[in-house]
């Protein structure tokens, strides 16, 4: 056997001689991940479906500006859902593709992800502005000060949607930064790889 062959066979023996894995523990851990994944998907689908139904219901019981607002909110939610699916697509991939193709694909997705997150960020801002514009008559102090029900709705909207909007904006900014770092990392990995 050649010296080169000897090196590989010695390294190979050392490599393959690694201690055995606790397969039962690994199988249990993998099984837990599978179920967690299924539960998360089910919960997310239920939440999205519930929110869509609520928007459609609002569209059917309101008229004029609030009907337009319901339609815009429905569109906004669908865009948001699209972004989340896009973000998760890489981790869901059941791929037998080669590593180089995967890196190319990941690079394309990261670039698309940045664009998508920008769209999402600005659409959130537009949605907030649209909501405030549509609500101008209800926001008049003369109206909500004499209407306890309207006051409660406004307080609830501010308490629930305020933090939610801030969280969405923070997520988009974090996601764009992360994707930029990812793009740079993938480009580094792709550079010196091929003989």
């Amino acid at each position, binding site marked *: 056997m050649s010296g080169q062959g000897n090196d590989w066979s010695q390294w190979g023996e050392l490599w393959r001689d*690694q201690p055995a894995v606790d397969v039962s523990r690994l199988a249990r851990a993998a099984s837990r991940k599978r179920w967690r994944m299924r539960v998360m998907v089910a919960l997310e689908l239920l939440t999205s479906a519930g929110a869509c139904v609520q928007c459609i219901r609002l569209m059917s019981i309101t008229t004029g500006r609030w009907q337009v607002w319901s339609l815009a909110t429905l569109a906004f939610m669908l865009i948001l859902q699209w972004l989340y699916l896009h973000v998760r697509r890489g981790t869901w991939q059941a791929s*037998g593709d080669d590593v180089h193709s995967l890196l190319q694909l990941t690079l394309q997705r990261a670039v698309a992800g940045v664009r998508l997150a920008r769209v999402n960020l600005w659409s959130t801002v537009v949605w907030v502005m649209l909501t405030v514009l549509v609500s101008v008559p209800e926001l008049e102090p003369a109206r909500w000060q004499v209407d306890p029900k309207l006051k409660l709705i406004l307080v609830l909207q501010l308490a629930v949607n305020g933090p939610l909007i801030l969280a969405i904006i923070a997520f988009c900014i974090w996601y764009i930064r992360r994707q930029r770092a990812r793009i740079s990392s993938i480009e580094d990995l792709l550079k010196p790889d091929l003989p």
Partner: protein
Amino acid sequence: MTRDDRQDTGFDDVLRQHAGLLSRIAASYEADPALRDDLLQDMALALWRALPNWRGEAPLRAFVERVAHTRGATHVVGQMRRPLGAALSDDWIEPRHGPDGHAELEERRVRLQDAVRRLPLSQRQAVTLALEGFSHAEIADALGITANSVGVRLNRAKAALKSVLGEGA
């Protein structure tokens, strides 16, 4: 028995047969023990998802290797700019040698794993396949490149490995 149950049963068998292979590939991508545990679980999960796509056109071992490397590469992209080296954990492993022999073997193995982790991705994949005992033709088939390119990658990797392992070229 439902389709999901059948898939889970088949997967458990495949996982049992290839857990060692997955563990070694995980070690070639991640030095940190906790993250490596997590990567190994993710590789198992990726295999569970990919297994229904395997039609037997390639050996199962090569398919498992490819899925694991794909997940490993995704992990590298996700864990950017972290240091490469770290101590090997005993969490997942069962000792097979005496304390002294185990320690010495462990040290040599850690150095080899560390050296493999420092290789560029394409070389790393070719090297792990070679270390697993795949022939040049099988590696070429698994990576979709020519046997000549496999030779070039392995030669380059060999020089890099010798340099990191401190062996004469």
